[in-house]
C-alpha cells in the first residue's frame, strides 16, 4: 500500500466486532452527555449563532486582530513570536529552551504541537518532554498518537492502561481501578511539575483587546506547569483570536457542553502577564492557515474551537477510531482540515463519512462540515486523487444513471445474478458486503410490477 488509507486503517478496530461496539458505545455516551447539557439551556441556538458570528468576524479581520493582540501582549511583558510553519515553530520553541538550558519541559494538551511534531523534535535535541494531561501521558508512554482531540486515550481499555502503568510507573499488575491508576499518575507527574525548567501550554482563546490567552483544562495540569516553571511558552494557531474578553461569556458556555457535557471545564485560566521573575512567550503559528483562509468554500473550518462534538457524533468515527484518519485531528473536522495541508495524501478522508450531517448539527460554531466534505469530494475526484475503485465506480454510475435503457437492463441482469450465483455479490471483494447481509433480490423490478398492475387496480 503506497499511502495510508482510512478504510484499510479502520480494519484494525473493525475486525474485532466486540471492540468496535465498545468504542462506538463509549463515544456515543459522551454524545448523550452533550445532548443533556445542551437541552438544559433555552438559549442554545442563540449561543451557537453568536459564537459563529464572532468567529466569522475573526476570519474577516484576522490581520488587524493579530496586530492588536501582538501590541497588547508586548505591552503586558509577553514575548511574541511568529512561525510560518511547523519547522519554524519547533525551532523557536527550541531556541527559547536552549537559551535557558532547559533539560525538562512539562506540556499540557496542545493539538498544535502534535501537528508540528514538537515532542520528537525536542527529544532529538536532548530535551525531555513530559505530557501531563492524563490521556496524553498514557499514549506518550505507549508511543501512540492521540485518537481523539479531547480524550486522546479514548481508544484504550482500562486493562491496556493498567499494563502500561505497571510497566512504566510500577503499579500493581492487574489493578485496573481508574482511581488507583489516576492516583499513580498524579504522584508521578507531581514530581515532574516540581522539577521542570519550562512549561508549554496550548491556547483555547486569545483576546486581541487585552493581549491575554485562555487555557481550559479539567485536570489543572496547565496551571501546575505554568505557575511553577520559570519559563512559560504558549503555542497557538492564528485562528484562536477573539476580539474581546466578554466574548468568552459565549465561548466558555458552549465549549465544555459540546465537549463532554460539563457546564464548564474545571479550570479556565486567563494569562495576561508573566509572574515576577518569569518569562512568558507566545508563538503564533501559521502552518498553512493564511493560505487556507483564502479559500472561500473552506475557510469556515478555521472557526473550529476543537470541542470534539463532531467526532463523538460521527457514525464513521465511532466505528473506525481516531487512528484510522492518519492525521492529528481526526473525525469530520479533521477530514476537512487535512486536504488543505496535503490534498493527495489525505484524499481518502473526505470519503470517510456518510454525509449524514450530524457533525454540522452539533458544531457549536456552526461550521458546515458535511457540505465541505462534499465539496472536497468534488475537487478530489476532478483532480484525479480519489482511489481507482471509487473513480471507476463513479464513472460507471454516471454512465448507468444517465442512460435509462442501460439502467433497466442492468437491473434485470443484477437480479438474475443475485438469485442464481449470490456468491458473486456476497463476497469479500464487494466492500458493501462487509458486516452486511445482501437483501433477497426481488423477482421483478418496480417498473415491471407497475407495468403489469397499473391496468387492473
Amino acid at each position, binding site marked *: 500500500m503506497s499511502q495510508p488509507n482510512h478504510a484499510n486503517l479502520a480494519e484494525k478496530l473493525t475486525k474485532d466486532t466486540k471492540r468496535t461496539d465498545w468504542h462506538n458505545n*463509549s463515544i456515543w*455516551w459522551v454524545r448523550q452527555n452533550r445532548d443533556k447539557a445542551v437541552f438544559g*439551556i*433555552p*438559549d442554545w441556538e442563540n449561543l451557537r449563532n*453568536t459564537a459563529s*458570528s*464572532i468567529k*466569522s468576524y475573526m476570519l474577516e479581520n*484576522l490581520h*488587524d486582530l*493579530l*496586530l492588536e493582540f501582538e501590541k497588547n501582549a508586548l505591552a*503586558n511583558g509577553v514575548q511574541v513570536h*511568529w512561525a*510560518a510553519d511547523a519547522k519554524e515553530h519547533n525551532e523557536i520553541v527550541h531556541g527559547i529552551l536552549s537559551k535557558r538550558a532547559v533539560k525538562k519541559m512539562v506540556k499540557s494538551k496542545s493539538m498544535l504541537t502534535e501537528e508540528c511534531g514538537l515532542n520528537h523534535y525536542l527529544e532529538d535535541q536532548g530535551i525531555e518532554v513530559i505530557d501531563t*494531561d*492524563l*490521556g496524553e501521558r*498514557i499514549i506518550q508512554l505507549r508511543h501512540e498518537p492521540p485518537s481523539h482531540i479531547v*480524550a486522546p486515550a479514548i481508544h484504550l*481499555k*482500562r486493562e491496556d*492502561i493498567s499494563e502500561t502503568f505497571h510497566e512504566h510507573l510500577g503499579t500493581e499488575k492487574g489493578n485496573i481501578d*481508574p482511581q488507583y491508576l*489516576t492516583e499513580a499518575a*498524579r504522584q508521578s*507527574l507531581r514530581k515532574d511539575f*516540581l522539577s521542570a525548567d519550562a512549561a508549554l501550554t496550548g491556547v483555547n482563546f486569545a483576546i486581541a483587546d*487585552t493581549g491575554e490567552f485562555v487555557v481550559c483544562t*479539567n*485536570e*489543572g*495540569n496547565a*496551571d*501546575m506547569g505554568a*505557575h*511553577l516553571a520559570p519559563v512559560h511558552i504558549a503555542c497557538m494557531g492564528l485562528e484562536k483570536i477573539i476580539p474581546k*474578553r*466578554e466574548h*468568552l*461569556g*459565549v465561548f*466558555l*458556555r458552549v465549549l465544555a457542553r459540546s465537549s463532554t457535557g460539563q*457546564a*464548564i*471545564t*474545571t*479550570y*479556565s*485560566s*486567563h494569562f*495576561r*502577564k*508573566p*509572574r515576577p521573575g518569569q518569562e512568558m512567550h507566545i508563538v503564533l503559528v501559521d502552518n498553512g492557515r*493564511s493560505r487556507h*483562509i483564502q479559500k*472561500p468554500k473552506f475557510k469556515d473550518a478555521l472557526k473550529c474551537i476543537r470541542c470534539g462534538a463532531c467526532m463523538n457524533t460521527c457514525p464513521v468515527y465511532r466505528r473506525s477510531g481516531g487512528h484510522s484518519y492518519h492525521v492529528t485531528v481526526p473525525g469530520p473536522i479533521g477530514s476537512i482540515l487535512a486536504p488543505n495541508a496535503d490534498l493527495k495524501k489525505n484524499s481518502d478522508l473526505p470519503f470517510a463519512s456518510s454525509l449524514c450531517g450530524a457533525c454540522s448539527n452539533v458544531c457549536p460554531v456552526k461550521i458546515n462540515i458535511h457540505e465541505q466534505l462534499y465539496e472536497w469530494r468534488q475537487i478530489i475526484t476532478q483532480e484525479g486523487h480519489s482511489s481507482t475503485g471509487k473513480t471507476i465506480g463513479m464513472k460507471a454510475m454516471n454512465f448507468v444513471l444517465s442512460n435509462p435503457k442501460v439502467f433497466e437492463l442492468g437491473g434485470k441482469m443484477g437480479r438474475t445474478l443475485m438469485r442464481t450465483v449470490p456468491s458473486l455479490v456476497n463476497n469479500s471483494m464487494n466492500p458493501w458486503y462487509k458486516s452486511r447481509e445482501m437483501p433477497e433480490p426481488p423477482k421483478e423490478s418496480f417498473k415491471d410490477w407497475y407495468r403489469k398492475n397499473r391496468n387492473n387496480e
Partner: protein
Amino acid sequence: MSSREEILGRLQLAAKEQKRQANNAMIQPVLPEFNKEYLGDKVKKFMELIDILHGQAMEVSSLKEVKQYIDKKYPGQRVFINIEDAEYNNPEEWQNSDPHDLEDIEFALFHGTLAVAENGAIWFTEEQMGQRVAPYICQQMGVLIKKETILHTMAEAYEILKDPTLGFGGFIAGPSKTADIEQSLVTGAHGPRGLVVFIL
C-alpha cells in the same frame, strides 16, 4: 522577509478579497441578551451545581464558623488562608516564597470575586490567590463567597470582568478531575481533590 511580514501579508490579501466579495465590511457582533430566568433562584442553583461538580457548598453566618471548620478538619496540617479579613490570614510566609515551597499545603482558603450559578464557576484574581499556583497545588481547596456576588450567567460575570488590570485570573469550577481512563470520572487529577464553598 520575516515570517511575521509574510503571514500578515497573506492575511491582508485575504482580507481585501473578502471585503471585495462581501461588498461591505462586517461589524463586530454585539452580544444579545441571554435568558437567565430558567435558572431560578441563583443561590440555590449555584449550590446545586457545586454538588454536581463533586464539591460541597454550605451557608455560613460568620468567618468564625469557617475557622472552626478548618481547625477541626486540618489540625496540625499546613493551611494557607488568604481572605479579605486580615486577622485570619497567614500569607506572609507564602506570598513571596518560591512557588515550589507550596507543594505540601493541605488546605488553602481563598476569597472569590464572584460566582456563576449556571455552571458553578468561581472567579479568582491572582491577588486573591496569594500565589498563582496556590489554588492548583493544594490538596484541598476552600472558597469564601459573599452571597450577593453570586450571578446567574457567564455573560453577567464578564460584564464585571471585562477590563482586567492584573496579570492573571481564572475560573475554577469544582475540584480537579479527569475521565481519561475509560470515561470514569476521578477527582484529584493534579490539583485539589476536594472543594468546599462557604457562602457568607
